[in-house]
């Protein structure tokens, strides 16, 4: 029951987010600030993880090929497929649910418990629009983050293969190019775009509607991470079913 109620409240929240817009001059500043916090601030960790996980994917693939009949370019091929299809869009989004999501929940939650949200409402500001809308706009740049993650993941795989002696550069690059289906990239970006909306709104929901004090802010962040990940995984399944089969 409580789940249904939350889903209902979530959609009502979205309705308020898009009604009674805050003054543009204010909104613009907020959007830039959120881009800095949410997008630029996540770049480091995303680059780091992408590069090394890309490398590990390549090594794992290479180590698991024992049959000499399997062509060497498979390492490049497998790295490309796993990085573009799942690793960059989905895996990085789960990481972001932890990083960006808990940041959003705790910052909005703190504003709730210290009555800053009430203060906004009392002034006549639509607090949901003021707080959540800039985050949605800022995170619409999230696909760029994922593009970089894809690129670095593949570079990581390439370097790991060459320096680990698992594959030659030529083989790897051949693997990258073979059987390339452009629609896979479209699919990855459709997912990413949907995930960016989830990353902005679900953590906001848990922050905005929390009750209690500082301890509850911590709890809300955890709950928010769990549900953001669960929704991302479910939506991932649904989109994959719809677009790739």
């Amino acid at each position, binding site marked *: 029951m409580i789940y249904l109620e939350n889903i209902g409240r979530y959609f009502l929240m979205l309705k308020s987010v898009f009604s009674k817009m805050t003054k543009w001059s204010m909104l613009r500043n907020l959007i830039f600030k959120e881009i800095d916090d949410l997008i630029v601030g996540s770049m480091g960790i995303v680059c780091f993880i992408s590069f090394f996980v890309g490398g590990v994917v390549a090594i794992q693939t290479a180590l698991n090929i024992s049959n000499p009949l399997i062509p060497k370019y498979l390492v490049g091929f497998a790295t490309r497929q796993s990085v573009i299809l799942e690793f960059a869009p989905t895996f990085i989004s789960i990481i972001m649910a932890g990083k960006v999501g808990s940041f959003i929940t705790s910052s909005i939650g703190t504003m709730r418990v210290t009555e*800053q949200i009430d203060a906004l409402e*009392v002034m*006549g500001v639509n607090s949901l629009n003021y707080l959540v809308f800039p985050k949605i706009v800022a995170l619409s740049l999230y696909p760029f983050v994922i593009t970089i993650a894809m690129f670095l993941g593949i570079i990581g795989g390439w370097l790991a293969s060459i320096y680990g002696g698992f594959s030659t550069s030529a083989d790897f690059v051949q693997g990258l190019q073979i059987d390339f289906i452009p629609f896979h990239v479209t699919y990855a970006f459709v997912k990413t775009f949907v995930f960016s909306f989830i990353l902005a709104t679900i953590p906001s929901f848990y922050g905005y509607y929390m009750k209690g004090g500082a301890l509850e802010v911590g709890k809300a962040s955890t709950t928010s991470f769990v549900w953001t990940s669960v929704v991302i995984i479910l939506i991932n399944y649904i989109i994959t079913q719809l677009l790739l089969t």
Partner: protein
Amino acid sequence: MIEVKNIKKSFDGVEILKGISTTFEKGKTSLVIGQSGSGKTVFLKSLLGLFTPEEGSIFFDGKEYEKLSTAEKRHLRTEMGMVFQGSALFDSMTVSENVMFPLRMFTNQSVSEMQDRVDFVLKRVNLVDAHHKFPAETSGGMQKRVAIARAIVMNPKYLFCDEPNSGLDPKTAIVIDNLIQEITDEYNITTVINTHDMNSVMEIGEKIVFLKDGYKAWEGTNKEIFKTNNESVSDFVYSSDLFKKVRQVYLRELEG
């Protein structure tokens, strides 16, 4: 003027406000007093529309709040100023940004006009050298004064203060009380203050509403509160020996 008619509010089945009616007049500082937990904050937040009472109605200069459209409610709120019990300053903004916030949000003034106004109100609350500090870098008393500055920066028609001088030293507390009374008088504001500071009660209580167990147990002025025979009020107001003596001296003076 604010008229409150029989408002009731409960949380999880526990009734906190059990039907309260009163009026707060323009240009007067009205005080709501009562023990900790008696529902003062809930009452004030119900006036502001942050809590919706289950029953009863609230009229702002004749307009019933519940009957207004969402847009009208938002507009009415731009005419209200509120000082929260915990100040509720935006902690991502500096002191002067906090005070400027309503101006930036709701007016089309130029930056220098806004800056002038901010300087003016900050001076009004005796804060001159804290403009660029963040709330976390200021003391509790300073935060209270910034909150007051933010509440009055738009020249509100209605001013609500939830314990504006709790946690302040006696001197600053008096400064704040006098300040609120001056502004109320000067701009003809309808001001409602929650307090359990007896000094404020004596000094600025042009109207006092005493809440007890969810009911309005007494109302009157600071002159009348000395003379009242209502036991629950005198128990509350004159709980300390000092105030008991003050009362006796005052009453003797009145007779003599």
